[in-house]
């Protein structure tokens, strides 16, 4: 069976960033869960910082530059996606949203997506449910039930007996994504062809007589 293709989108801005760190952890947990099912995994990571100016330009010109096109293709062709953003002003960052604005409307349709977010304080954790999940629902993605929020404290915290620690949440989320992508990643992608509706059909739809 062919390898499972995972795309990881990180909207972290510093280098290294806690957003990228969380993204890598989620990717690793998914890999482990898939390898347990004896599936090979190919992980491809898109740092949105690297295509930030091309994203901005695509709004003014209407077309994507080469690096942005390549990033969009990697995300579109993946069997599953891990999308992680820092919390800015009570939501995902503008850069994160802009990338998904640039993608084709149906690029994520039916695709399993694992959501992650990072912030300085745990008070923003519901950004996952109130901002991110509706965005991906709109894009008709299949969001993984467990979404992972990592506040600064989480990186050092152990199990407190009430909520599972960050590593355990990451492992659970990765397991859920693996469960959703494994059965999807079986078919080979078909060759892409320009789809054209024959003109007679377009005329018929309008009941215009052919000449």
């Amino acid at each position, binding site marked *: 069976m062919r390898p499972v293709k995972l795309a990881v989108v990180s909207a972290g801005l510093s280098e290294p960033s806690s957003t990228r760190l969380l993204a890598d952890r989620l990717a690793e947990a998914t890999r482990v869960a898939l390898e347990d099912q004896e599936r090979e995994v190919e992980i491809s990571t898109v740092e949105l910082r690297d295509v930030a100016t091309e994203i*901005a330009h695509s709004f*003014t*010109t*209407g077309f994507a530059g080469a690096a942005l096109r390549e990033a969009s293709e990697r995300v579109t062709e993946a069997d599953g996606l891990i999308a992680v953003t820092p919390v800015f002003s009570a939501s995902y960052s503008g850069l994160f949203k802009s990338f998904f604005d640039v993608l084709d409307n149906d690029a994520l349709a039916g695709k399993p997506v694992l959501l992650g977010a990072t912030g300085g304080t745990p008070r923003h954790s519901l950004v996952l449910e109130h901002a991110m999940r509706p965005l991906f629902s709109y894009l008709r993605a299949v969001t993984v039930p467990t979404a992972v929020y990592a506040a600064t404290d989480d990186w050092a915290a152990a199990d407190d007996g009430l909520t599972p620690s960050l590593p355990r949440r990451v492992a659970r989320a990765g397991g859920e994504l693996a469960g959703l992508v494994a059965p999807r990643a079986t078919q080979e992608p078909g060759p892409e062809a320009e789809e054209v509706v024959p003109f007679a059909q377009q005329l018929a*739809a*309008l009941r*215009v007589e052919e000449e």
Partner: protein
Amino acid sequence: MTATTPIQFGIFTVGDVTPDPTTGRTPTEHERITAMLTLAQKAEEVGLDVFATGEHHNPPFVPSSPTTMLGWIAARTERLILSTSTTLITTNDPVKIAEDFAMLQHVAEGRVDVMMGRGNTGPVYPWFGQDIRQGIPLAIENYALLRRLWTEDVVDWQGRFRTPLQGFTSTPRPLDGVPPFVWHGSIRSPEIAEQAAYYGDGFFANNIFWPKDHFKRLITLYRDRFEHYGHGTREQAYVGLGGQVFMRKNSQDAVREFRPYFDNAPVYGHGPSLEEFTDQTPLTVGSPQEVIDKTLTFRESFGDYQRQLFLMDHAGLPLKTVLEQLDMLGEEVVPVLRREMAAGRPAGTADAPTHAARVAARDAEQEGAAV
């Protein structure tokens, strides 16, 4: 009369009223309109073949009434083909298009063709009683009616988008019984490439703002489908392309002078740099030789083609500058392009369409049918 050539060169204008960013001065509508008329005459004077004007119904654009403008130009020119870029097939009544352009054919002794486009400004549609969400169906139905109005003397019609016609004759009838050649302009829709192919009409890919890969797909689709519908080989299809240039003798002078216009241009200003944009799109800012070199790459990407239109007069460039640009285009660039593109043009490639050639082809066909 216009002679038959492998490829026609010309200019197309949007007709934008834009402040000159270097002086802050905005031309009046009247100045802009008379500048467009001056440029059309200049186009003929420097040996270009085509002048095409856009059609817009919202400021900051002035050309709302193309056939009025083209009629005036027809009277002041002798060889120039008058065309549009584009005529709105969605919001204009096809009856009025049929009449206006047939009248223009008579006035201009056949030096007329027309490029159909949909228009992408949502609010314009309701001003004319239409809805942009119906853009493609409007383009299909209205054009089907337009063709019948031009080819049939008496038309009965019922469609979805206009009141029915019974026993209607569009007047005047097309000159010599041959309607204007039609180009279908498109930036992104494969449906329009398919429409152009179905009728054996021309396909004009306005490639000036986007990278070439996208247009390669559209033009390949058009050529394939042209052949599929039995109008001839892929090479006999009629392809038109856009271009956008600014020239000075020295490349650096061109870049220096054009940069403020680029940086503030209505369509792409305040986005990527001039260097990035010239790298990714057909825009060329440099010496005449650089313009020649870049334009010659178009045929490698899209195959030998029949019409090349340049956008020369937008973004607030002063008339005097644009006239200098047309001098260079006519004297230094186009003669070389004509020579280079004629050489190595595969046999069987279609010549650029003219009224005279279309009348001759029609006559030959009728003679063939009579024998």
